[in-house]
């Protein structure tokens, strides 16, 4: 009996070792070149279409700047798991780290890493108190803009009726800021009754089910306003399933599914937060600061801008070239086209990043 157990356990150990070695074999090819700079890039969730756009842009920056990039992050958004990933990257000897900061519990840990001299940049999710520059949108302001656009669509300050607001991740600081802005704008119409904000979940299937339930419970709602990437697509599907629905659908991000909902008229407004800049700029800032010995251990704000998209109009930030909706749709499905479109921005706004640094308070102004 003991022999059998021993044999099985030894087999287990040997196979575990084999799996780890095999796993090492799927390491990114860039890992092989030790003399290049290596940048760690940590996102708060893997497998989200919007986050994928950021990751792709970060990889484009790494390619342009001839550095290695290690992308990692937890499967589900959870601050402690993400902080552990950042700590692991720091211990593995990367030269700089870009990370989103979705949780306040990450702040002390990140500052401890910065204190050791590790250059760091935050993106997409701001950690208040982290001593590193932040690349992201003006979250409250973009919420105000979305709220105003929705209000304009439903009749302005004299509008009367229900507006459903959904937050896929209550407590996530950037989303709370957007929500604040949206509600601020909608409150300008005294006849508007806000339904929610409801927890509409981040998972695509659960998100759809939540919006479906909300519209079923409030069939005469004037508008449905989401704050996260899966919302516009879900709202579009819910509207499509209700023939004759006049409910306005609005939300965030320019994923392929969201643009499709705008194109077929089942959703109406989506604000982008320029994922290209949120991925490209942090890597650029890190590499530039390491190569030119620029200290970046202060909380400063680098605006990634807000893109305003409806089926008939596309407004891009920072004087980028005009873009039609169809071109935007094609671009969202092609990294090559995305990189080409933003080339002018890379040569101006990105290159001059030091001139564009603003006080961190402007993020939530």
């Amino acid at each position, binding site marked *: *009996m003991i022999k*059998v*157990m021993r044999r*099985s*356990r030894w*087999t*287990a*150990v040997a*196979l*575990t*070792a084999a*799996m*780890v*070695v095999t*796993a*090492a074999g*799927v*390491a*990114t090819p*860039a*890992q092989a070149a030790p003399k290049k700079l290596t940048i760690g890039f940590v*996102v708060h969730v*893997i497998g989200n279409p919007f986050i994928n756009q950021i*990751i792709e842009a970060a990889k484009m920056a790494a390619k342009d700047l001839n550095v290695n990039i*290690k*992308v*990692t*992050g*937890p*499967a*589900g*958004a*959870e*601050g*402690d*798991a993400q*902080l*552990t*990933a950042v*700590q*692991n*990257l720091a*211990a*593995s*000897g990367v030269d700089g780290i870009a990370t989103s900061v*979705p*949780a*306040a*519990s*990450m*702040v*002390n*840990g990140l500052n*401890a890493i910065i204190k050791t001299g590790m250059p760091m940049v935050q993106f997409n999710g701001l950690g208040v108190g982290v001593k590193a520059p932040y690349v992201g949108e003006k979250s409250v302001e973009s919420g105000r803009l979305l709220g105003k656009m929705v209000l304009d669509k439903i009749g302005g300050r004299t509008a009367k009726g229900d507006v459903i607001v959904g937050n896929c*991740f*209550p*407590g*996530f*600081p950037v989303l*709370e800021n957007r929500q604040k802005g949206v509600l601020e704008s909608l409150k300008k119409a005294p006849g508007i009754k806000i339904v929610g904000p409801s927890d509409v979940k981040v998972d695509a299937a659960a998100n759809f089910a939540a919006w479906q339930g909300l519209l079923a419970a409030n069939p005469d709602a004037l508008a449905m306003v989401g704050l996260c990437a899966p919302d516009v697509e879900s709202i579009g599907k819910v509207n499509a399933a209700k023939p004759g629905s006049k409910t306005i659908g609005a939300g965030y991000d320019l994923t392929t599914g969201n643009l499709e909902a705008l194109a077929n008229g089942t959703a109406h407004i989506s604000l982008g937060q320029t994922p290209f800049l949120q991925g490209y700029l942090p890597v650029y800032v890190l590499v530039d600061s390491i190569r030119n010995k620029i200290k970046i251990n202060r909380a400063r704000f680098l605006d990634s801008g807000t893109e305003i998209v409806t089926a008939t109009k596309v407004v891009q930030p920072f004087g980028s070239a005009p873009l039609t909706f169809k071109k935007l749709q094609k671009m969202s499905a092609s990294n090559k086209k995305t990189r080409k479109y933003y080339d002018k921005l890379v040569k101006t706004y990105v290159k001059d990043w030091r001139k564009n640094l603003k006080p961190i308070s402007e993020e939530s102004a």
Partner: protein
Amino acid sequence: MSEKSKSKRFKFPEETSVIFALLLLIGIVGAMRPNFLKPENLLNLAASYSISALLAGCIVYLLAMGEIDLSFGWILNLSAVVAGLAMIAGVPVWLSIILGIFAGGMMGAINGALTVLMRLPLIIVTLGTASIFQGISLISNKSGSVVPTDEKLRSNIFFRTLGGDIDTPIPFILIFVVFCFVLLHLTLHKTRFGYRILAIGSNPEAARLAGIPTKRIKILACTLMGVVSGIGGVLFLGFRGAVDPSTGANLLLPVVAAAIIGGTPLSGGAGTVWGSLYGALIVGVIGVGIVFLGINAVWSTLVTGLVIIFAIGIDQIVRVRKNRIS
């Protein structure tokens, strides 16, 4: 060989194969990335995974009883929120800590009482209570992070010790968790309460007929899980300096996996507290190893799952063979 000499022969502890697997994993990652073997890195790794290890050490009690708790992550969260809000409200830090742990114990007791009263498996009861605890936490923290930022609070020995402001050769949280493991091990294997848990897990009906107060033991075991989750929450608050609405959300898989990899069967009747510690470290080394080896993020979840399933599967094979032979 006589029976006497057989009994005197040295027996490796049950956890030997897990320890060996852990050392092997450390060795492989270390051989490929020598930075990994730096003592400070290994200690930080252990400290990062110490809270989930502590929970794994306690969930062994429930697994040994043939039960499983799905709510401990949210008990941890709500306990930390209670402690954090109490501190912000001006309650002395030591009293806030006790309040947090007490809240955890109460939540555990509620789980146990509901299981006994409703005559339902703990897994079903905690499916509901997990959501309730999460909901109460979100209402209490107004869906935001709880951050005791007051300078007076931050300079308290609790935050300075756990947060690493006071330099110790070994992180304090690690020392504390190892101490808890000693207590959990002794309680499970050297006390009547522990024996009763194992007896209930082995054969609940026989345990009841033997006069073991099964209902009381179930409530006590759930309360213990709540207390330990509460301790975990308070440790988290001190270690990270804040608690977020998502804290604890993703603890279920790594904690249960750690206990099972460590050698505690889901079927009940047996359990190893120390094994769960090594199991937690294996889960940790897999996570850290993936980063050190530069495995693409898209692959990392798959690799983690494969290694965990593999380890559990092999353990099960060994167990089945052992049962067949005996």
